[in-house]
């Protein structure tokens, strides 16, 4: 499975984005949603949609705030997903997410393509405000906002975004036919990006700051076996060069400190991601990894009635299937919570 996303698509934080689509019901009354919903789910990756499928089947009529351009989450930016169980020949990421969305809708989930701007999670009735000002009230909330791509933090990175700096090989690899490109990172997704890019590029240099990959063995082997991939160990990117577009990278050997230059037309950044917690960081307890803290194997957060699932609680595994499993956990926790409230 590839894990990369377009820079703005998934990098856009839910809290700063705008509503693009409004369901007819909302258009009639833009600022008020009078119902107190049983559960509102923020986010629409595998965790959010799985939570929606389960809570919808349990007759809680979940409202899913799917995001205006982030709907479907990270998998929308991938191609073939080979490791999601049940699909013998693999499935395209966007198709998998569309299936999940339709499966949730089939059981009555109300999916709204809107962006959440703020949440109020304290108290028995929680509120979730979306971009157009509509305030939704709910007895339980599931936070499944996923993660967003880490940047290198270099001065010219932002300026050259879309002009050679990319976070999404599947989106942008096509534009580097017969060119030389670099991928920065050492995990599965970095190698996935590099391997994908060999379809187009003449040469792919994989730049990793350590002397071995974090990636799984099968992915490592793919990188080692690929004649188009060259690996630079113990190397960090010191600067990205280029006026209107990327022309080269300034590199530094992390052991010797020696500087060098690598001419490339593109650089793909795959150095991991950070949990998207800006909406909730002042209200929920976070872990040292900046994920939302949950109690043991449950989805229970530091506030009653607030549950969290998917990459936003997971500093370790971050797979489509673990996120889906985590969404199921949250749905079952919501069921138990609401049942206890009603008894």
């Amino acid at each position, binding site marked *: 499975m590839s894990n990369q996303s377009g820079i703005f698509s998934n990098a856009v934080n839910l809290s700063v984005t705008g509503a693009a689509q409004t369901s007819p019901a909302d258009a009639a009354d833009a600022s008020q949603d009078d119902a107190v919903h049983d559960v509102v789910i923020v986010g629409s990756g595998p965790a959010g949609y799985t939570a929606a499928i389960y809570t919808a089947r349990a007759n809680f009529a979940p409202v899913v705030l799917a995001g205006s351009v982030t709907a479907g989450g990270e998998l929308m930016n991938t191609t073939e997903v080979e490791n999601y169980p049940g699909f013998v020949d693999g499935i395209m*990421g966007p198709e998998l997410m569309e299936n999940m969305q339709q499966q949730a809708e089939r059981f009555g989930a109300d999916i709204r393509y809107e962006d959440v701007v703020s949440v109020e999670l304290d108290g028995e009735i929680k509120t979730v405000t979306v971009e157009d000002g509509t305030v939704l009230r709910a007895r339980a909330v599931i936070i499944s906002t996923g993660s967003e791509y880490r940047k290198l933090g270099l001065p010219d990175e932002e300026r050259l975004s879309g002009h050679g700096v990319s976070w999404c090989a599947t989106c942008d690899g096509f534009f580097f036919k017969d060119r030389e490109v670099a991928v920065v990172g050492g995990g599965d997704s970095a190698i996935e990006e590099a391997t994908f890019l060999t379809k187009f590029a003449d040469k792919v240099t994989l730049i990793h700051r350590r002397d071995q990959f974090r990636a799984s063995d099968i992915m490592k082997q793919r990188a080692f076996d690929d004649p188009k991939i060259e690996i630079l160990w113990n190397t960090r990117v010191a600067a990205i060069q280029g006026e209107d577009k990327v022309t080269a990278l300034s590199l530094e050997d992390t052991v010797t400190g020696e500087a060098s230059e690598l001419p490339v037309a593109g650089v793909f950044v795959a150095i991991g991601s950070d949990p998207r917690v800006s909406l909730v960081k002042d209200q929920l307890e976070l872990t040292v990894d900046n994920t939302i803290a949950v109690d043991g194997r449950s989805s229970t957060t530091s506030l009653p009635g607030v549950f969290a699932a998917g990459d936003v609680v997971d500093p370790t595994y971050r797979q489509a299937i673990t996120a889906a499993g985590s969404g199921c956990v949250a749905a079952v926790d919501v069921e138990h919570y609401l049942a206890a409230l009603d008894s």
Partner: protein
Amino acid sequence: MSSAKDVTDANFRTEVLENTKPTIVDFWAEWCGPCRQLGPVLDAIAAEYAEQVDVVKVNVDDNPAIASEYGITSIPAVYLFANGEVAKTSIGAKPKSALEKEFGEYLTPSA
């Protein structure tokens, strides 16, 4: 991808560069997930600002000349052309409010 009109290498000049109205061009491809997500956003802009701008799309797979002429290396790429020149660019799938802000001066109703 949006449901906007397809423009090609062959008619880019007449449809975009010679258009008297500012024209938003959505550079997209089938295999681009974020392009799919951006489509409905551009459709909404096309509908709401029909008086101010035209919205068209260019499939970069089928029309490599135009994509290459404008140095497109990331899609979705949304370029606004006015008087035959690139006036504004926006890279990536962004919400409507963000695009409205970036292209604001071309979207306000003329007095």
